[in-house]
């Protein structure tokens, strides 16, 4: 899934970095000079799951402005509510098409004008 997401947002002009789980993502972010505009977060990950990552990111003042989108098969209403309450901005349920993902990002104002969509 990381490779698919990398391809989709790469087409939009984003520079992309990925991590295998929430803990690795926090470590990666800690080493970055600039905070990314967007994080696409799976719920079902080893070590630190997506919800734990979103919660941790929202508690970190440095990451507070980063847009967080959950990308997951967890489609129950209770999961969506928990993710949004924890600080996720949007929720995309797998399977999704490239068009659906780009539409969500456009709603968040993250598709640059003239991007190759």
């Amino acid at each position, binding site marked *: 899934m990381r*490779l698919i997401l990398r391809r989709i947002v790469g087409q939009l002009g984003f520079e992309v970095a990925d991590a295998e789980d929430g803990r690795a993502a926090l470590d990666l972010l800690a080493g970055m000079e600039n905070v990314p505009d967007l994080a696409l977060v799976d719920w*079902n990950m080893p070590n630190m799951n997506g919800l734990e990552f979103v919660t941790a990111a929202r508690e970190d003042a440095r990451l507070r402005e980063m847009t967080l989108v959950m990308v*997951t*098969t*967890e*489609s*129950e209403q209770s999961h969506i509510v928990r993710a949004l309450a924890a600080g996720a901005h949007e929720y995309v349920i*797998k*399977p999704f*098409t490239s068009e659906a993902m780009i539409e969500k990002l456009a709603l968040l104002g993250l598709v640059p004008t003239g991007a190759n969509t």
Partner: protein
Amino acid sequence: MSDQTTPTVDNLREIAEQVWSAYLDPEGIRPLMLGETSEASSGVSASVSLTGAWHGHVVVTCSSEAARNAAAAFLAMETTEVSDEDMTDVMGELANIVGGNVKSMLPAATAVSLPHVVTGAANRFPTTRQICELAGTWLDEPFSISMWQSRELAEVPAA
């Protein structure tokens, strides 16, 4: 659990259609052909376990060639560029997507595990029984999605 909440082959078909439409056959020209089954000589088997209010497994099994085709479609690359790691990742992701969607049909207190992928052998679940299977061919290669329920729970009569 009553039979009403036990996923059926129709549920698997609906999920498969979504997966093929989104990733494996977005142009609608390479569908999964149901009902035409043949044994994979050397296959890849990816599974996720469901635990909690419902116990069992969702298993995606296909030939190595089908797994290679799936990875190529999923990752938008040529089959010649697909690595063994790509195949494993994509098969695991397919099991995760199908399993996650099956989970949404089950009682809320059911959790889905991380995917487990086995190559060259079938996943075995000795304390389970198969409750449904969607089987056929994709690009002339065997491909199936099946559900296995914990035998203990499967044999409890509905209230």
